[in-house]
């Protein structure tokens, strides 16, 4: 308690002391607002001091003694009176404040000399605030201003009232230059130097009085180049040390030189000059001629460029006179400048009297250039050169003389038919000829005389007649309309005729076991000719489902093949006369059948469609061969006993 009381006393004393000082400085402080930064701790505003007062009071409250509280309250209530009361014992107990003042300002005015003046500062209390450079208003609400070196709080000095201030002003001659240090709350008396400084600032002069304003100007950083660089910044340490990266580079270079990887520039230049002088180096490139590895490499399927054609006489500097152009040719040559490929020669032949008169050829460079273009730009291909002559293309024709004798004149005309004759067929002996016509009749002629021996009515337009090839029989097959008539020609040897008639007079007995297929039954109907028909010469009549196109005998004379037009898969029908039986050999229609033919010797059937011929083996019942003819439309066919087939287009 005692300690606290004494402290409070001390504080009050300092307050009393400080108050007039601050007031006196009020004016100057306001003026110095601008220079606040320069002065640092010296300046402080009135508000601050007032705030600090509040703060003191709160601190006192914190201390918490009732007595003190009462005192405080009374203090506040009384205000100035309390302060004035406190100022009584100020003079008696002013020791510490004086000490403080002397400590803050070493050069005190003469009248403030004290015991420490001799220099003995051993027991001097160093009052410093240790809070650092912080805004002091943070401490406004506290009774203290900070802490000193020993960690003890620096309490805010007591606030002096107006009266104290007035008294102090009256008494203290240094009052006008006493200010409060905001960090410590102590009064500080400004010395002469400070005052001078403040004065200079007020006058807006440079604070340093020694500053020479008008001294001669030295231009350090001028355009003049100095021997040693004048830099505003000091040289770094790095700049004095050898560079590591450079050292590495240099060592690499040195190594390269040592190993011979790198050549010094001078040496290199000398080497180059020498090379240039010597020209390119040549050596025996083809020492290992025909190296397989080299042969393999290269252009695929290489086509060497054709050589240029060699010049003829016309290109000579002194050509034979006939090669020179006359006026007309020259005019033509010039006219063909648009179409130069049509020109006879690509140059105008010229004749010079002597070699020395021959000038350089104006298009020489251009021609070389065009050749170069040809070499790398013209597409190449292999073309076969014709080695044949035009004559080789001509076909060899037989001389007409070699083909003689051939009939050259008309000798006989067989007259009698009233309409177009569609078909003729000679007798196997060659004595007779049978013809079929659109006048619905067939006639039998004697070949040698042209006499008509027999006329047989066919009942429809005759499309085909065929003489039976058998030597024992005398029979005709006539295709007339839908009917196939098997007739007796009623000419020739009577023996043969009677034999044939006997053979056909009685139809063979129908074998009940054999079943005629439906296909055949609907297509063909056999009939025996009787009565008038028999007398006319008809022997057997076979009626078909459609018109007939052709009738052909087999070599033995028993079988007969007919072609039914538009018969589709029943186009070809084979009849057996002796048994009055029919077969349809093909199930499928393979094109429109144009003609059929039996092989004269072998068991083969030739069937001609529009474009191809099929050859069937009759024994094996299978297709042997298919011949593609290449003709557009086969109309007729004949088979040679050898291997030939003749076609009619």
């Amino acid at each position, binding site marked *: 308690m005692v300690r606290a009381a004494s402290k409070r006393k001390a504080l009050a004393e300092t307050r009393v002391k400080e108050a007039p000082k601050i007031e006196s400085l009020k004016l100057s402080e306001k003026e110095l607002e601008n220079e606040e930064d320069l002065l640092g701790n010296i300046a402080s505003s009135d508000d601050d001091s007032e705030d600090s007062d509040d703060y003191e009071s709160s601190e006192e409250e914190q201390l918490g003694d009732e007595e003190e509280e009462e005192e405080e309250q009374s203090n506040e209530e009384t205000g100035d009176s309390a302060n004035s009361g406190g100022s009584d014992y100020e003079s008696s107990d002013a020791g510490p404040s004086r000490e403080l003042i002397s400590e803050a300002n070493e050069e005190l005015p003469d009248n403030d000399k004290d015991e420490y003046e001799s220099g003995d500062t051993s027991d001097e209390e160093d009052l410093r605030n240790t809070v650092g450079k912080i805004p002091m208003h943070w401490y406004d609400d506290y009774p203290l201003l900070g802490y000193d070196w020993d960690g003890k709080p620096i309490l805010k000095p007591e606030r002096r009232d107006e009266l104290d201030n007035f008294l102090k002003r009256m008494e203290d001659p240094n009052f006008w230059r006493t200010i409060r240090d905001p960090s410590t709350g102590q009064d500080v008396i400004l010395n002469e130097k400070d005052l001078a400084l403040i004065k200079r600032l007020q006058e807006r002069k440079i604070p340093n009085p020694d500053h020479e304003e008008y001294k001669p100007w030295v231009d350090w950083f001028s355009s003049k180049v100095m021997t040693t660089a004048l830099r505003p910044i000091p040289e770094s340490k790095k700049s004095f040390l050898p560079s590591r990266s450079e050292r590495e580079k240099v060592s690499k270079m040195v190594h390269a030189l040592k190993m011979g990887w790198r050549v010094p520039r001078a040496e290199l230049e000398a080497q180059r000059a020498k090379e240039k002088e010597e020209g390119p180096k040549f050596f025996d490139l083809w020492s290992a001629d025909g190296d397989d590895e080299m042969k393999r490499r290269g252009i*695929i399927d290489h086509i060497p460029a054709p050589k240029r054609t060699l010049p003829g006489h016309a290109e000579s500097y002194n050509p034979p006179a006939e090669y020179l152009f006359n006026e007309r040719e020259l005019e033509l040559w010039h006219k063909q400048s648009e179409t130069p490929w049509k020109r006879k020669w690509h140059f105008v032949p010229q004749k010079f009297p002597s070699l020395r008169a021959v000038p350089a050829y104006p298009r020489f460079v251009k021609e070389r250039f065009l050749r*170069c273009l040809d070499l790398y730009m013209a597409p190449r291909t292999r073309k076969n050169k014709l080695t044949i002559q035009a004559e080789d293309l001509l076909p060899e024709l037989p001389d007409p003389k070699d083909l003689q004798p051939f009939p050259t004149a008309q000798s006989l005309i067989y007259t009698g038919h009233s309409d177009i004759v569609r078909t003729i067929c000679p007798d196997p002996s060659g004595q007779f000829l049978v013809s079929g016509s659109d006048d619905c009749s067939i006639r039998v002629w004697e070949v040698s005389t042209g006499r008509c021996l027999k006329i047989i009515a066919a009942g429809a337009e005759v499309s085909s007649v065929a003489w039976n090839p058998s030597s024992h029989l005398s029979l005709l097959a006539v295709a007339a309309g839908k009917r196939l008539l098997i007739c007796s020609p009623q000419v020739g040897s009577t023996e043969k005729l009677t034999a044939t008639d006997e053979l056909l007079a009685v139809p063979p007995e129908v074998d009940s076991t054999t079943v005629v297929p439906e296909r055949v039954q609907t297509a063909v109907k056999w009939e025996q000719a009787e009565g008038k028909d028999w007398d006319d010469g008809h022997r057997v009549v076979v009626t078909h489902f459609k018109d007939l196109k052709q009738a052909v005998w087999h070599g033995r004379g028993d079988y007969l093949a007919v072609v039914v037009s538009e018969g589709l898969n029943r186009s070809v029908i084979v009849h057996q006369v002796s048994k009055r039986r029919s077969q349809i050999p093909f199930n499928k229609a393979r094109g429109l059948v144009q003609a059929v033919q039996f092989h004269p010797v072998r068991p083969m059937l030739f069937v001609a469609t529009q474009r191809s011929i099929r050859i069937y083996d009759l024994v094996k019942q299978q297709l042997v061969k298919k011949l593609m003819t290449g003709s557009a439309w086969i109309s007729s066919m004949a088979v040679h006993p050898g291997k030939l087939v003749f076609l009619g287009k």
Partner: protein
Amino acid sequence: MVNRKKKYEAGTAQRYITRKSAMKKLQLTLKDFRKMCILKGIYPREPSNRRKAQKGKTGVKTLYHAKDIKFLSHEPMIWKLREYKIFARRMGRARAIRDFEKVHQYIDSHPTLTLDHIVRERYPTFVDAVRDMDDCLTLCFMFSTFPSIKHVRRDFSALCRRLTVEFMHYVMAARALRKVFISIKGYYFQADISGQTVTWIIPHVFPYKPESKDDVDFRIMSTFVEFYTVMLGFINFKLYHSLNLYYPPKFPVSSKDAENKLLVDQDVFVSERIAALNSNLLNSDGSANEYVEEEFDMDDIHLTDDPEKIAEAREERDKVKNLKTLFKGLKVFVGREVPREPVVFVLRCFGAEVSWDPLLFVGSTFDEHDTKITHQIVDRPSLDRTYLSRYYVQPQWIFDSVNARKLLPEVDYLMGKTLPPHLSPFTIVRDGQYQPPEEQALREGVPFKPQVLEEEKSEDEEESENDEEAGDDDDKEEDVNSDDDDDDDDDDDDDDDEEEENEDSDEDEDEEAKAISSKELKVKQMAVKAGELAKENPRQQQIDEAAQLRLRERMIARKHRKLYKSMMKGRRSRQHEINLLTKKRKAIDEETKAAKKKTKKKKQPADK
């Protein structure tokens, strides 16, 4: 899922690749692609079916073989080109920022193309390379005459010059030249090198003239030459070594040369001497190279059993053997108006000793006053001072003699005379080709004596004989002329007679026929008469034959009809050409003859 076969995924479409896609594949610009194609010898192909090859696209595209492009893609040179691109970019930048130290540094490490491996790759054997030498030589010879222009640097043309001169030295040393021809375009030379026929052209003087870029792109040509120089260098090396010659060429130094040598730069001296083409080169053992007749017995080789062919080959060999030493023993002085290089080259190729005016070019070996000179080549109408001991002939004599493979009589080629036509040795005799009478005579081995020229010649001979004598022997000349005229007339008469005889025979036949018919009329009694030969009317026969031919032509298969027609058309046009030329020749001959007679007639009264 069925693997459906898509169009253009196999076959022709995959075999070819368009230029654009090739460039894309190789990642090259057109310029670089072009360069690669030229250097590697890759060319477009003509497909058998263009529509398929272009994958159905219309228009004509440049198509390359896909495998060729694949082959090209493996070429390390492509990387060099890319390096070069980088180099150019760096240089451009360094130049732009004026960093000349860098510029020098880049130039020092400048990427260079080496083409050695390409030569080997394109020509796996030496013979392949020789076979493809024609274009190489012609282009190098042309470039060797070029001045320094944008895409052809001075050292480039100098290299061409060096290589071509080396090549000519080889041809001289090997006696490989076979045919020569002076054309309006230049000098054609044909040589037989390693069994291959190589033909090249040396242009007439100063062939270079500035060309517009559309006309001639020197950059492309210089790319070609870039490759050709390398190729020619390697070929030269091989050729020199095949003859046991030192390469690069050296020549033996005489004491006289040594004096001159002190005055000039060593290299220039050597290169000039070599360019003079007038000295034998050094063998690799240090001795001077001399041509040695190789003893090669062809009888040992029997490629064919056909005796005719063997005989033919043997004859040819003998002729070539003669040709190689055609000018041996001749000492020729070349006048200064004559184009020196080709003339010296040809003369030296066949063993002549040659010299020229020392002021004209270095390397002359003897001077004009040498009495041992047999021939002097002059290309001017007259000379002030002439020697009796030598022939003054025009340069065409050399060329014609080489082509004839024998020394032609100098009289036709004497100084100031009108030259006989210079014929091409490259023509092949075949049907449908016009042969001028001179060529026919040459092939038959008979000296050509046209009537007009013959007259002239006799006169000239007279004159030349009388040259030295001051006076003219008028009477003699007249006599000769009159003789000639008589001869001509006789010839004409003979022709006429023959024609008449023909006519006569025709008439005789007619008369006989008439007589027979009259006799038949008279005698109508039965009698046995001597049989008569059925006479065939040739005209009727011709008509029949023509009819037969027409019938046969009609029977030509449709497939061949067009071909036959075009062949016949070509034949007709060729025949037309022949007729035209013969007609022209006849007219010209007659004209000259008439002119000659006219002048003679004028001359005669004056003489009298």
